[in-house]
Structure formats: structure tokens, C-alpha cells
């Protein structure tokens, strides 16, 4: 699994929680999940749980607390699953 695939999967998970689809048009590694995509903080917990299921990993509270942008999620997941480069 490379980073581009992780990026696509991460965006695919998050988009189900984004009410205004236009906000997904220019999504990038720098996009803030809470502030740019307007996902509320309770739904961010749901997203973290979906990351665990999709990528078959456990995300502890400290790591979950540091996931604020798409890039944070992609880089963290890539580190956990040993991904190749891409989507930088």
C-alpha cells in the first residue's frame, strides 16, 4: 500500500462525514479535518474508529489527538502499515 492509496482511502472515509461536498474539491495533505472540512469533533472520533477498521490498526488516544489534518492521518497510517512514498 502506498501513500497515495492511503490518501485516497482516508479521503473516502472522511467524505461520508462532510456535509458540504464542495469542501472536498481541493482537499490536500494540509486540509484540516475539523476547520476546513467542518467535521465536528464527535464525528472525528468515528473517523478514527473507521481508520482502525480499514487499516487494521489500533490508534491510541495520544496519537488520535494529534490527527488534525488529512496529512496527519495519512502519515500516521503510512508509518503504521509501512507504506511506500507518494502523496507528498
Amino acid at each position, binding site marked *: 500500500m502506498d501513500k497515495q492509496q492511503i490518501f485516497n482511502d482516508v479521503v473516502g472515509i472522511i467524505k461520508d462525514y462532510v456535509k458540504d461536498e464542495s469542501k472536498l474539491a481541493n482537499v490536500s495533505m494540509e486540509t484540516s479535518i*475539523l476547520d476546513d472540512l467542518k467535521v465536528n469533533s464527535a464525528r472525528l472520533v468515528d473517523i478514527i474508529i473507521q481508520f482502525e477498521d480499514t487499516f487494521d490498526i489500533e490508534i491510541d*488516544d495520544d496519537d488520535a489527538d494529534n490527527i488534525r489534518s488529512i496529512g496527519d492521518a495519512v502519515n500516521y497510517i503510512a508509518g503504521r502499515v509501512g507504506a511506500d512514498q507518494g502523496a507528498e
Partner: protein
Amino acid sequence: MRAVGNDVVDLRADGAWGKSRDKRFVCRVLTASEQNRLAKSQNPDACLWAMWAAKEAAYKAVSRIFPDISAWPGRYETVFDHPGLPRQFAGTVNTPEGSVCVRLHWDENRVHCVGLIGSSELWQDLTADVFEPEDGAHPAIESSAKKISAAARTAAAAAIGLHTGLPHGLVKIERTRVSQRSAPPVVKIQGIHTETPVSLSHHGRFAAFAFLAPLQAQSAAMCS
């Protein structure tokens, strides 16, 4: 130091209703003792979201003083003054950087919590409100999340203006952004940054705000 935070949860919103049955969510956001309280509750959804709103309100207040504090809800523990879930009650939230006093009220539609850091007398200086922008309180504002957020900001600015005796339009509430996080909102009066503690929230149908009365000296200077 004075700081305020508030949070509203629409109990009927998508993702809120029935959430107390989502065991994985509950285990991620509640401590063991909170899970025990939830298990005993006769209103589990309201109980879950009351604890959530208290944690969020406490985070918003304490992050004014400690901007890098953890936002993860499992790091915050609610201690309520009443074992049940009366319509109005008080309590404390233990955060990684000290405790925050909270007051909550709820009905079948929403939970609202305000958290305060400072002396207990500060509750007398608090103004808070919850409203539905669609219900006639703010009829010009439609119901999208962005506009509900704007409704909270506009209503808070109007309330501060009313409190300080300033004409409508001289009070603005603005947000900036610091390293991928929205910084807490700030109150500007006639373009000048003030230290008035203010907090905004919106969820589902509801918008909410809370603020502490501007310090007298500052308010007088602004009005002169």
C-alpha cells in the same frame, strides 16, 4: 484569569440519536466511571451528550490558557453534582490542566453546557443563550452549518453590544487560525481586540454562545 467555554448538542441530529449504544465510541470518549454512569442512566443519549458537552465546554475554556492542551475527550473526566440527570445541574470537569466548573441544562431536543474558569462569582457575569436560527429568533439566517455558525457569532456580538451599550455593528467576533487549529474567538469593539471571554457553538439545529461581561475599565474605555 477568566475563561469560558460552551457546547451545544442537538440530540435529534444525525449521529447523535442512539449514539449511546455505540460501544466503541463510548469507550473512546468516556472514562470507566463515566461509562458506569451511562450504563445506569435512564436517558442514555442525554447522559452521553451531557458528558460530551461538558468535556467540550471545559476544553474550550481551558485551551484559552493552555492552547496546546489535549483535546481528546477521554483525557477529561466529568464529575456531576447529581447522580441522576435532572434538567439542570452543575459539576466539574477534570482536565489535564486542572478543573473547570460547568453548568448544564437539557431537554428532549438538546444539551447545553457552559464551563467557567475563575472565581465562582463569575457566574453572575455570564450571559449565555441557545437558539434555533430557523425558529424566528434569527429569521434572515438559513440553516446550513456555516450560517448557523454565523448566527451564533452574530447573536453573541449583538448580546455583547447590548451589554456594553454599544450600537449594533461596533462589536465583532473574529476567529484566527494557528497551526491547523481554529484559535478561540476574540471580541473586537470598534476594531480593538478586547479580553472579553466568549465561546461559540453550533450543532444540528442549534446555535449557542456564552460570554463574560467585559471588564468595567475596558468597557468604559471602549465606550468613551
